[in-house]
């Protein structure tokens, strides 16, 4: 009942909701289902009903509708009253999982990520399977429903995590011999290497380091960092999330850097919110220094140094935890615009969630699939060569969606494109 008290403490935050309904049309589950209980306003109403003692946390209604939330926080962007939905959702979910133990697959992933050893084994296996090329072959050939649908999605996601060769322009892959860029020194930064990011997206981490250095940032190695705990916080395992967050706060604080950099939107959002999560000053101070990689390169009045032309048609899809949770909306676009000859094409409804949300597509196969297909369809209208998005979950989800649709469009992190542009300029 401690958790219930924790939610009850948030009565004022819940009270900010004036029931105006502005969140309904931007909520991916409401768009799909049309049931107000699957809208942010509806979920807040259910939370409030629990606080008022009119609803039990173990009730089907509370469990079902809170579980169905993707946690994209698009509602926060449009809320005229500034309701902190994401914050409330985490506390409400903590109460929900305490009241009813979630099914095994839902418990499995956070458990795996919290343990270093188990995580490296699992992600190592993932890399081996990915290396066989089987996932790519299987994705798109399996049925889309039932167990095989889940396997197909998992395979698609795995396949989409592999490094992409960016074939563009006549001089693809040929490094030009140009004098190495010698930027002014801007400061020292530490990078959150992440769990999935370091396990499956090591190439994104390498690209991040490359572009940081090319832009004059000294990247400090920080050992002792671990999983950020976002996955745990989002699924209501707040205690575990706090444990993991404490580890990172002390590791990064000890490093004494100007900024802590994240290249994964979900992780960055959690780091930024560690102050609220841990309710202590050190965490608050660390949180203030957190930046998304795109902000450091192309935000706050900075411009990335220009590399060689990369004549690609790129569609940028903003990860929800960057766009809505961190409100980082323009710097990824500025970053991409700085690449010579790169053409940015807008995705209709870009600010809508892709349906990734961790392993939502596997736990909510039908709904996640519908949300994902909406994104895939929108991307296919753009005629792009490459999709850029700054979050591993989104990269995998969108990649799997495109593979399932039989498309060969690659999904990359924006810094991969910038790094490629620098590589062609002969700087790395």
């Amino acid at each position: 009942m401690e958790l219930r008290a924790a939610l009850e403490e948030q009565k004022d935050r819940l009270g900010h909701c004036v029931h105006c309904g502005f969140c309904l049309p931007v909520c991916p589950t409401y768009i799909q289902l049309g049931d107000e209980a699957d809208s942010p306003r509806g979920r807040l109403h259910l939370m409030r009903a629990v606080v008022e003692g009119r609803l039990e946390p173990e009730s089907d209604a509370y469990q079902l509708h809170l579980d169905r939330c993707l946690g994209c926080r698009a509602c926060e962007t449009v809320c005229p009253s500034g309701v902190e939905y994401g914050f409330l959702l985490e506390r409400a979910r903590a109460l929900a999982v305490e009241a009813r133990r979630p099914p095994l697959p839902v418990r499995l992933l956070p458990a795996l990520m919290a343990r270093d050893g188990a995580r490296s084994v699992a992600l190592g296996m993932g890399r081996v399977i990915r290396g066989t090329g089987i996932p790519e072959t299987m994705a798109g050939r399996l049925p889309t429903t039932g167990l095989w649908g889940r396997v197909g999605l998992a395979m698609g996601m795995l396949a989409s995590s592999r490094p992409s060769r960016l074939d563009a322009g006549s001089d693809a892959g040929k490094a030009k011999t140009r004098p190495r860029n010698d930027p002014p020194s801007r400061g020292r930064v530490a990078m959150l290497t992440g769990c999935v990011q370091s396990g499956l997206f090591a190439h994104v981490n390498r690209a991040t380091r490359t572009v940081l250095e090319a832009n004059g940032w000294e990247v400090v190695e920080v050992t002792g960092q671990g999983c950020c705990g976002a996955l745990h916080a989002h699924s209501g395992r707040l205690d575990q999330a706090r444990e993991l967050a404490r580890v990172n706060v002390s590791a990064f604080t000890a490093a004494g850097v100007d900024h802590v950099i994240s290249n994964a939107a979900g992780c960055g959002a959690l780091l930024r919110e560690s102050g609220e999560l841990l309710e202590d000053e050190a965490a608050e101070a660390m949180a203030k220094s957190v930046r998304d990689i795109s902000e450091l390169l192309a935000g706050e009045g900075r411009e990335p140094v220009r590399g060689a032309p990369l004549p690609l048609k790129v569609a940028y899809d903003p990860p929800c935890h960057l766009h809505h949770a961190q409100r980082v909306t323009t710097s990824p676009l500025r970053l991409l615009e700085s690449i010579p000859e790169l053409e940015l094409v807008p995705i209709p409804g870009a600010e809508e969630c892709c349906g990734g949300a961790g392993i939502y597509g596997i736990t909510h196969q039908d709904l996640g699939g519908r949300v994902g297909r909406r994104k895939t369809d929108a991307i296919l209208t753009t005629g792009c060569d490459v999709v850029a998005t700054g979050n591993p979950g989104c990269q995998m989800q969108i990649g799997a969606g495109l593979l399932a649709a039989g498309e060969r469009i690659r999904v990359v992190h924006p810094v991969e494109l910038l790094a490629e542009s620098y590589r062609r300029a002969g700087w790395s």
Partner: protein
Amino acid sequence: MSTTLPLVPSLPLALRGKLADVVGDDHLITDPDRLLVYESDGLTQYRFSPSAVILPGSAAELQEAVRILHLEGRAFVARGAGTGLSGGALATGGAVVIGTARLNRILEVDPANRLARVEPGVVNTELTRVTRPHGLIYAPDPSSQSACTLGGNVAENSGGPHCLKYGVTSRYVQALTVILPDGRSARLEGASRGWRGPDWIGLFVGSEGCFGVVTEIEVGLIPEPAGVRTLLGIFDSLEGAGRAVTAIISSGILPAALEIVDQETIRAVEASVFAAGYPTDAGAALVVELDGVEEGLDAELELAATCVRDEGASEVRIAQSDEERTALWAGRKRAFGAMGRIAPDLLVQDATVPRSRLPAVLRRIGEIGDRYDLTIANVFHAGDGNLHPNLLFDRNDAEELARVEAASREIMEVCIEVGGTITGEHGVGIDKRGYMERVLSPEVLHAMSEVRSALDPFGLCNPGKVLPDELPARAELPNEPLPALDAGPIEVESDRHAAALLAAASREGVSVVIGGARSSGAPPGPHLRLSARGLRGVIDHSPPDLTVTVGAGTPVGELQEALLASTQWFPLDPPGGGATTIGQVLAGGLDGPLCTGYGRLRDHLLGATLVTGEGRVLELGGRVVKNVAGFDLLRLTVGSRGALGLITRLTLRLFPLPAVDRTLVWTIEDPLEAARIGMRMAATGSPVAALEWIAGEFGGESPSDGRLPVGALVAARLHGNRPSVEAMARTLEAAAGVGPRVLEGEESAGWWERRARREGTGAVSTVVSTLASRAESVAEATHRWVDLGGRASLHLVGGGVRLDLDPAGERAVDRARALLDEVARAGGVTPAPSPELSGVLGVFDPAGILPGRWRESWS
């Protein structure tokens, strides 16, 4: 585990099964816990849990569900996005909620005819998002437009900041498909779709879901204004801002929006996370938005800025970019949310008062706030006199809640006292039922109640809304003897006189003809003939409010004369010109070419007095610009041609006289080429006052040197300030490729008057609705009519052709009839059959003595 179960009769299993069969298990919700989220809409003071929610995926599913609920005697209520602020979508008495969220398809966008066909669950802004690439927008913009649905907008007759210039939802709805409370489907079409009869759409729009559930909506779109200017004036006092509004209106500008926020609101916004940079010591801030032809805006802006400065603004900010425009609006648009941040609960009132009374009313609201020790923050649509006092409180403080309720009631009383109404745009719903008796007479309440019973005899469709449960006693009917019949028309002298005559006729079962035989035909047998000719003259004109009340027998020309001194007018050029009476225009649904730029008379009709066939006097509407208190019986009188009774007087919303009135006339040898040129002009989207294709002899002029009937005219009427009129003229001339004859000022007005006087005078005289996109083929068919010696005038924007002919002999009449059919075929509009709603007419004419009952058809 125990869950608090609301006291709601649960749905019988058999009924659940039937509904699930229709909408599917996934779209039927009966778990009381899951239903909790539907217990409130945008108004959270009330909680009513429904017994079930169904989410139909098609109009057919919705219809079948309503049919089942009707057969089972189960109450139901439609719900869009649940953003309403009067509790209109609450499931009182355990009603079943019919959610329209899944009916969210835009079925058709027809740019050539500026039309869109949508399902009711489409979100307001989504429609404009889709039509904007065609240069078109959907004009009504309620503040909740990013969330609210068009179905909800239809139910509430929604307004918004820009309705000062563009009007409310009712003006834009052209056709509706409605599932009536008994599950039958009815197709309601407006004048533009060929309907000639009572304005059913007007009645249904704003009926708050009590007359059925809409499944398809056809709306008109407007060209997106080419330019926008936004100005923010900061004032030390609210009075200063109020005076600036009056000054702007009097200067002859019609702004797109005029919005004021008061000091409390500014402080709330600035204290919140949404700080907009308004000075917190300011007494009020006024947002003025102007839109229209780019070239004319700077002069208007200059004029508006002068008004604002002259009335004592301490600061004037003008937006230079879209971002700055957003910033200037921020304090207004974020106000509601900001208040949610500073107080746990919020009660928003929605009263409308005559604009000239705004300063006095605001002072009194301030006093009420002080007296009850409450924070009242005012946000309002100043141009419309539509106030939104926000009372801030904490519902857990019972004593404070009581003070809020008392203060709220007092505010309402103040607004009513000055001639205002209880709701301008939020609707009555459940919240304002208690005030209905204060603004509507017992007669009107009874008429509304009877109309509702005629449409929903079992009271299943959104029960417990709009009307109070108990109605006040109504007056006795007059009991005077019936005068001698067929002694010529009797000129009605007063409401009482008309009531006595109609009550007598009703009692004796004697048919009544109102106005000339021309408008309603003649019944068989002896009958009473009434005329409103004697009810002539202006009764009240309030220039600062831009309103006028006139007797129904007042000729249009006489009204314009009377208004001239105030530099105001009512834009109307009906067939027959200035000699046609206002009452005739209303009852006949007669509008002229000016409806292109200004809308129809129905769109500016604020009030009317109707003496019903039974002899009851109904004061419908009022003197305020926005009014959604109760069902819109007022709109039903438009085009009713005597079917409801006799209209004795009308109140109209006026317009400032345009600075420049210019007419461009092109004489084109080939009538089809003329139509093509006209269509090119229409396609420019220029905000013309009128744009007509005219053929045949008219107004003493001939298209080409007296040789009749050769060629056709294209005539455009342009209103505005000089730069905008000149810019529009250049645009049209470029589209035409040849130069026109130019008439200005009195010459321009006189030209249209002469033309109008020849209209509606033929032995065969009618209007055929046509699609604007078919102008060329309509012109082709029409020209054969002209060959026969007829006259024709086609609206190039919006469609519709008026035809007059004096056929010589029987054979010519037959040919004329055949030609009319041809024109109709070319026009592509098939008028829907008359909907089965005759029960509604019975409310006004229980004895069946009026033309609505004995006339065979409306066409």
